[in-house]
């Protein structure tokens, strides 16, 4: 899967994940006057994580709208604007606060098109910093993407690189459907190559980040990054892991996973959300009901978040979600089991 258009290769520079997101928003706003951003402290403050940055100075307070702290209301306002010709990008300050906006996202945005017989659309993007690792504790560290993956009418993406962040966000803004865009806080400062020109990454396509033959590791968001690092460790031990970055939870590119599993016969899924009923459950179930099932030489293994709210203490916090070494250990374990 090569998303990088060849003629832009010269125009690539290094950007952080946050900068890539900002660039995507800026380019979309330049190209289309109906695109605007709303959210808490996204103006002068530049966003709680600095993602909107200087956009207010470039586009003014009419298109970079600081809102009151009223998540349900601003989500609803975004829905109403999307329904009437605008393309709002809503930033929720932390993805945990989507619990306050859930009604508008799930009962309105996701269902309006269907309820109205296909005669309306809600081109809305909801950007949400999520994940743990910043010591922000239980109410500011969740990964709730699985919730929205469960809701027909929504699309759900989780970029893990600056390149994907820009390309997926531009695709999300173009999309006539509501797209939930989960950003990972620990990735904001990660740097990577990003073309200057606008480009889109098709929502719903996973990407093979590393080819391998011994085990397939599917990761989402930051776990795709950790899976890649783990694969290097495994390679040093003679194990070639194939690493897939899922990128989109809904729609989910199970084909890419099946293809890999047919080759490697072993599957580990790594995700930060709580293990039970998290993204890994769906991947595992999809494989288990597919013909890739017949190729499996070992039980499918899920590495998800522990069954616990996210703790404040940094040691506990790390222990609560999969780390690079956990992935290595899981792979070794799986291959060992398999061999015995």
């Amino acid at each position, binding site marked *: 899967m090569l998303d990088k258009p060849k003629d832009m290769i010269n125009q690539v520079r290094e950007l952080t994940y946050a900068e890539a997101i900002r660039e995507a928003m800026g380019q979309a706003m330049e190209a289309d006057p109906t695109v605007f951003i709303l959210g808490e402290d996204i103006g002068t403050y530049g966003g709680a994580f600095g993602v909107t940055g200087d956009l207010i100075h470039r586009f003014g307070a*009419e298109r970079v709208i600081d809102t009151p702290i*009223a998540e349900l*209301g601003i989500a*609803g*306002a975004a829905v109403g604007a999307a*329904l*009437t010709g605008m393309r709002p990008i809503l930033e929720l300050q932390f993805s945990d606060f989507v619990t306050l906006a859930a009604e508008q996202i799930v*009962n309105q945005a996701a269902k309006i098109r269907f*309820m109205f017989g296909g005669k309306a659309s809600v081109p809305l993007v909801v950007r949400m910093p999520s994940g743990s690792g910043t010591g922000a504790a239980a109410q500011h560290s969740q990964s709730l993407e699985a919730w929205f993956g469960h809701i027909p009418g929504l699309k759900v993406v989780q970029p893990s690189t600056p390149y994907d962040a820009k390309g997926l966000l531009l695709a999300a803004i173009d999309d006539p459907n509501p797209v939930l865009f989960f950003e990972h806080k620990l990735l904001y400062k990660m740097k990577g190559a990003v073309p200057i020109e606008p480009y889109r990454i098709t929502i719903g396509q996973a990407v093979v980040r590393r080819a391998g033959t011994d085990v397939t590791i599917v990761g989402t968001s930051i776990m795709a990054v950790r899976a890649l690092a783990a694969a290097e460790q495994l390679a040093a031990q003679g194990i070639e892991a194939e690493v897939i970055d899922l990128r989109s939870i809904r729609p989910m590119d199970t084909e890419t996973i099946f293809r890999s599993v047919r080759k490697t016969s072993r599957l580990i899924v790594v995700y930060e959300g709580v293990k039970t009923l998290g993204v890994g459950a769906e991947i595992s179930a999809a494989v288990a009901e597919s013909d890739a099932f017949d190729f499996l030489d070992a039980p499918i293994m899920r590495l998800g978040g522990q069954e616990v709210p996210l703790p404040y203490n940094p040691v506990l916090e790390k222990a609560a979600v999969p780390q690079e070494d956990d992935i290595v250990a899981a792979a070794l374990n799986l291959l060992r089991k398999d061999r015995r």
Partner: protein
Amino acid sequence: MSSSVEALRPNQRPELANLSDDTILESYRAMKLIRRFEERAEESYMRGFIHGTMHLSIGQEASAVGVVVALRASDTLTSTHRGHGHSIAKGADPALMFAEFFGKQTGYCGGRGGSMHIADVESGNLGANGIVGGGLPIAVGAALSAKMRKSDQVCVCFFGDGASNEGAFHEALNMASIWRLPVVFVCENNKYGMSMDIARSSAVPDIAQRAVSYAMPGISVDGNDVAAVRAVAETAIARARAGEGPSLIECKTYRIRGHSKSDRNFYRTKEEIEEWRGRCPIERLRNEVLGLGRLSADRFDAIDAAIEVEMEVAIEFAKASPNPDPARLTEDVYA
């Protein structure tokens, strides 16, 4: 107010004097159409043509009509679970509404939505809503959109007394005010949120009082008086259109039927219902106008007769329409 009209008919209250004959007849027609539409829907329900539930606005027609008929065609509205009147006043085709109630492919929502989700975004009807208070922030968004697009559209947001206790009410009115948006909030206070008397559910008896918290005009009006409703609506709509910001209008009214089809009316008295039945907004307009000698009865009768025919045709259309194809169930989820 046209002073010539006033001069001509000094015995009229200004709200009515202000209305041209055409407007009076248009308002009458819209109210009567809503009434007969709902009565026929109720009958169809009893006969098993409609499943699920429905929320009838019988008795409340003046608030829908007084406000919506004062809008321009390009204006928008958000409606509620009790929204038939809003849709019809906005110009919805009763045939397509019946078809939707009957679950047919030809209905406004292709049979996917039913009574609680009638919408026609093209014509500015941004949809009924099954979620109490759900339309409040959506209306704010529509008004924000109108302002950003530099259109002069106004959005009217209907909601109930019960909805005014939802957090969405507070968030929506505050946003609309700080951003001076062209939205008119219309609370149809029919005294009950399902079984909950407003005296028990709300700390204040008049929802309009809550406008103070949002620094916007708040006015209570007799919601069964279409001329009075229209007068306050015109002021609020003009204000919104002029960029002066939102208003809150409270129409005091009453629903004659139960909350939904399963309501046994345990929470209110027969006397109360009867008292309000006597304040029918449709009869009231007709009688007042006839009493003034402004229009002859046959003008009203002609409207009534035409509506009966329209209802027959509409129901026949709905009955004759095809059911949706289950094979196409998952279409229309994504654009």
